[in-house]
């Protein structure tokens, strides 16, 4: 048990590091951001993606038939570890490249692969994922966006309906869309998957105004959007299986943004307290800090376990499933506690307070979203209970 690379891994890491040092642009905007704002930011994102693609560092583990360098999962992890040590442009490509595009490529012929694989990997075209709907909530299989075959002999389809919570739809070119093709079948058996050009007539993207004031998600409306049958992925009415496969592509959670124990420690060290000289001298704060540290370290080393499995050529086990569940609530509780420690100055949203304050406030206002996005706490617990703990399936899950 150690934290060392294998010889191959060490070599790969050294090559990657050298390449990054020579190639990371100097004009990166200085912050890792969740979103992409403005055309300048998008331009630099595309340019960095293209540079990675040309060097074989975009989509590292894509196979050769997709135009990928056919690297190993651990090489992909190593590259991202090293890349994250630099300030790089934002990355609006990851959802497409990790979820949507692999599905498109897996279910398409070679011609389609050639059409889409490289341009996605190169950052020329951005993909989004259109699964969630306002009426369905966590129940993705309840999708109501209708797709009907035209009767004009073209074999084309017409889409009508609404998707929601679509990240990057406002800058995306294409999307993967799950539609209801059959309203008579049981709900899992009446869905069909397509890819869709977001510049098609009848597509309207509206940003969602989120509770923290920002807009990283969108609503996407489809009104009589015509698509060709060769945009279909998998069989008619067989879309649920395609969707499940897409969801399995979800990559290793490694978002390390947001407030953590070290931020509380740093703030508490400078803050006056009713106990002792600083809030950090307050044993109640110290005991809480210890709890948060153990959670964060637990997640970090759980991630190390996953990477180890990849490094040994294994598929990671269930460990990965707890990441977001733990982190989202921790972020919410920790940032709230930190704000309470600052007293009424904790809610002041101006420059000039403890320097971590805006981080705690951002985390406080984003955490409720993180507890919902990509599977609510409740859905994640169901999934872990059934897939990891192998508890009996919830009889209440309807199939109709």
């Amino acid at each position: 048990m150690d934290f060392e690379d294998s010889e191959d891994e060490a070599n790969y890491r050294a090559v990657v590091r050298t390449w990054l040092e020579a190639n990371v642009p100097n004009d990166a905007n200085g912050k890792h951001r969740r979103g992409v704002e403005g055309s300048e930011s998008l331009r630099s994102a595309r340019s960095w993606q293209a540079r990675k693609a040309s060097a074989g560092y975009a989509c590292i583990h894509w196979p050769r038939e997709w135009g990928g360098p056919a690297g190993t999962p651990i090489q992909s992890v190593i590259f991202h570890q090293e890349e994250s040590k630099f300030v790089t442009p934002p990355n609006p490509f990851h959802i497409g490249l990790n979820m949507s595009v692999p599905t498109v490529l897996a279910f398409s012929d070679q011609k389609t692969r050639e059409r889409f694989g490289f341009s996605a990997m190169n950052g020329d075209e951005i993909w989004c994922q259109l699964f969630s709907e306002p009426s369905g909530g966590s129940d993705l299989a309840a999708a109501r966006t209708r797709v009907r075959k035209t009767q004009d002999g073209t074999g084309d389809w017409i889409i009508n309906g609404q998707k929601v919570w679509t990240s990057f739809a406002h800058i995306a070119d294409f999307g993967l869309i799950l539609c209801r093709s059959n309203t008579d079948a049981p709900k899992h058996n009446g869905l069909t998957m397509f890819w869709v050009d977001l510049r098609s007539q009848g597509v309207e993207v509206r940003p969602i105004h989120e509770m923290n004031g920002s807009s990283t998600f969108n609503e996407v409306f489809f009104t009589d959007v015509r698509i060709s049958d060769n945009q279909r992925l998998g069989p008619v009415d067989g879309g649920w299986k395609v969707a499940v496969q897409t969801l399995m592509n979800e990559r290793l959670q490694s978002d390390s943004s947001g407030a953590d124990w070290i931020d509380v420690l740093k703030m508490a060290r400078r803050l006056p307290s009713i106990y002792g000289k600083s809030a950090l001298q307050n044993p109640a704060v110290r005991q809480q800090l210890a709890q948060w540290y153990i959670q964060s370290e637990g997640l970090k080393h759980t991630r190390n376990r996953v990477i180890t499995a990849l490094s040994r050529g294994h598929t990671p086990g269930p460990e990965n499933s707890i990441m977001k569940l733990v982190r989202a609530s921790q972020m919410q509780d920790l940032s709230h506690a930190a704000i309470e420690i600052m007293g009424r100055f904790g809610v002041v949203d101006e420059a000039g307070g403890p320097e971590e304050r805006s981080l705690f406030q951002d985390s406080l206002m984003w955490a409720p979203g993180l507890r919902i996005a990509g599977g609510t706490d409740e859905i994640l617990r169901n999934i872990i209970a059934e897939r990891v703990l192998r508890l009996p399936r919830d009889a209440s899950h309807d199939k109709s």
Partner: protein
Amino acid sequence: MNFDFSDDQKALRNQSRRFLETACSMQRLRRILDNNEATYDRELWKSIAEQGWLGACIREEHGGLGLSHLELCVLSEELGRVLAPIPFASTVYLFAEALMLAGSEDQKLSYLPRIARGDLIGAVAGDDWIGSIIPLAQNRRTSFDNVGVTAQDCRLNGIKSAVIDGGIADAGIVLAREQDLLSLFIVNLNAKGVARKKVRTLDPTRDCAQWQFGEVLAERLGRPGQGSKILETVFDKAAVLIAFEQLGGADRCLEMAGLYAADRYAFGKPIGSFQAIKHKLVDVFVKNELARANCYFGAWALNTNAIQLPIAASAARVAASDAFWHASKENIQTHGGIGYTWESDCHLFYRRACLLSTAIASPEIWKERLVSHLEYQAEE
């Protein structure tokens, strides 16, 4: 045993709830939220003044209705339910209570009728840093360094940062260092030498500002050196009343979540039929009920000026802060994606919960105050 509000008080609750449903709808609240310049709902302020709420506990000879604090608790709970965007707490629980507690008859006659009529908004600025306003058994002095304002010959100099409702107040009560004493002063905030700056907070539906004083002439409230002592009692009283606001907010969150869970379908069923949601909302209910019971005891102690007030106020504040925070976050969670949007009302409760739990010192400090008193009580 008579541990409940009276029928009259319950009638007042029903009547004020009906009134606020229209007078303080969420649509009206959003006018304050979405308008950067608006700072409070003037129309609502005017109409509650007309109904006498601002002077509910002010004696009749000072222009009020002369009701008991129990009626005020009823109103606080209702105002908390609708997140009323008005300086009620600052003016009524803090400013008016401080005056009634420590003001001279002249001062009462001068200020209280204007408050009752809705002509004067008040705000109170105690310490300028964290929690030192709550004297502890172990440490019965307020740290001078944290007061921020000095007084000499009733002239004030210095800064009070982040005073809630400080931007819209007409008059302020200010804790200031006067040589080696801490004393209170009443300041006309429109007087010469006062500079005010709006302060943004996580809850844009309530006003907040910084006060800067340069040789501002002020009027003394209470005797020199009595500042901390007076504020301590005022804060105890305000803690009970704010706890009722928090309780109202927490109840409303539970109702919103329950209604949504009954109506919203997923997996072919109302989400409220899933134990994951059911049991989550029961946990919210439990915290709300525990807070309610502690608030009622606080109301009794406030109303009877009981010796247990510091304990009762601390317990009510801690329980209600916890309940409101918990209810507001699980309300968002129950609503799912919808709850995370700006258009949903959920985040307004979440924001207010954060504002209220930090407003008059954080729960941590009130827990300490509580245990100090329990310790003292147990020694006897």
